[in-house]
């Protein structure tokens, strides 16, 4: 069981997801099959409402599939676990705790056997990693949106997860802050080497950060339409890539998928 296949580190097999709401049943996902390699960076892209966040929540264990199976490191995903950390779309920091306390809350639970000093050291290290040591005693509403998302990333990384799940992590940020954080995320991921799954609706972000871009068809009963390999060498530099032929080709591939073959009819 423990001997996980490195090529199938995270596995989604025939995953269906049906929501039962007051208005009736809604088939969100149908027949999702995806294997994620260890250390790979995957982006899931698609129009809003196609269920890309649902895929992420399934991997996180926040939702249970209606049908099909999900595995992480060879084990079935039965619920949330510390090996799969989530960076939420709207940062979801607790407003009554300081940045330090927000991160500490996560650390404390995962490394419950360690001493307080060790836990504090871990927290400081995670906050330093995202460059926020100077604001660690501030509350979330005293810092900018970009800084909040940094704390969200620090909280997730502090748990030393095997898989980092990012739900449109930079969606609410302005373009400059977003570019900044993308660059830093690339550096951090290169250092930690953990597997990442990111949901996004930003084509540039998907191509720049990912090893593979998973493109989803429109819902209901959304599924994986196409998977695009991004074989650009790392480290990747935003400015150089802007004039790179391969990069622009990949970028237009994704755009073509989204706006020609699976254009959203009513938007």
């Amino acid at each position, binding site marked *: 069981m423990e001997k996980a296949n490195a090529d199938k580190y995270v596995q989604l097999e025939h995953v269906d997801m049906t929501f039962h709401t007051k208005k009736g049943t809604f088939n969100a996902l149908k027949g999702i099959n995806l294997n994620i390699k260890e250390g790979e960076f995957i982006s899931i892209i698609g129009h809003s409402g196609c269920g890309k966040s649902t895929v992420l929540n399934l991997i*996180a*264990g*926040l939702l249970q599939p209606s049908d099909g199976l999900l595995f992480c490191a060879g084990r079935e995903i039965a*619920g*949330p*676990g*510390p090996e*799969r*950390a*989530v960076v*939420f779309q*709207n940062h*979801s920091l*607790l*407003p*009554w*705790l300081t940045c330090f306390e927000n991160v500490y*809350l*996560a650390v404390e*639970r*995962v490394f419950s056997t360690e001493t307080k000093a060790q836990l504090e050291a871990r927290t400081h290290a995670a906050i330093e990693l995202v460059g926020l040591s100077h604001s660690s005693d501030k*509350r979330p*509403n005293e810092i900018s949106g970009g800084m909040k998302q940094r704390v969200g990333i620090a909280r997730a990384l502090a*748990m030393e997860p095997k898989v980092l799940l990012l739900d449109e992590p930079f969606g609410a940020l302005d373009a400059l802050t977003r570019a900044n954080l993308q660059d830093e995320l690339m550096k951090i991921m290169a250092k930690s080497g953990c597997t990442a799954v990111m949901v996004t609706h930003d084509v540039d972000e998907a191509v720049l950060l990912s090893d593979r871009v998973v493109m989803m068809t429109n819902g209901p009963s959304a599924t994986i339409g196409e998977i695009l390999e991004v074989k650009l060498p790392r480290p990747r530099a935003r400015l150089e890539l802007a004039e790179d032929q391969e990069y622009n080709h990949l970028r237009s591939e994704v755009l073509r998928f989204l706006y020609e073959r699976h254009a959203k009819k009513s938007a």
Partner: protein
Amino acid sequence: MTNTVNKIMPTAKPFTLGSSRRLNTQAYRFFGWVLPPIFGLFLLVVIWALIAEHTQELPGPIKTWVSAVELFSDPFYDHGINDKGVGWNILASLERVGLGFGLAALIGIPLGFIIGRFEFVARMTAPVISLLRPVSPLAWLPIGLLVFKAANPAAIWVIFISAVWPMIINTAVGVSKVPQDYMNVAKVLNLSEWKIVTKILFPFVLPYMMTGVRLSIGVAWLVIVAAEMLTGGVGIGFWVWDEWNNLNVEHIIIAIFIVGIVGLLLELMLTQIAKRFSYE
């Protein structure tokens, strides 16, 4: 207020545009914030005086004021069980309210948390709460008298039963309104139930809880007067009834002011506490 303006002027720097603007804001604060409440209270006294002028039994403001000065010159005298100073009566009422309200908080707040947290309990308690909440608190007095066989615990019981509902309901509403995002954080971080309560639910629910507490103390203070009229003993409600029997109408009017002012102070005190606990 005009006095303070005069006091400020000599220390102010030579007359510049800035200081004249400061003067304007002072004037605005005086006419916009200080004057209207004073005017409102003045109007109340005028209407009262006019009514008293045309009513034989009703004492006017001046007569009441004289009586109040005399009353409060010695608020803590004690001439036996049925003749104590007004101070003792106020304290006795506050003690009952404190006890009944404290018990209500002790039971109502945890119960609210449980109801908000577990849907089954919420559905279970919903019919009971809906049925009992609209009942006038005084209707519970005979039951209290029957069970406790004494007036004082019965009065505390009435306060308890009237104060407990706002705390249960507001706490439960607060808990049920905790954003799903925070609960997802709790799930992803795999927090223990204890951590969920102390780090997420409690800080989030606190403002709701404080609203419940404020409503409760208001209701409790409303009810105490009526309850004490029925149970007797020492207390502001009994005092009103006693003065009615003595036909001392000045004292009844004074009692109305006392009840109002004490209620206002209780409310202010809790608002201050609520502000201290707010995380924003």
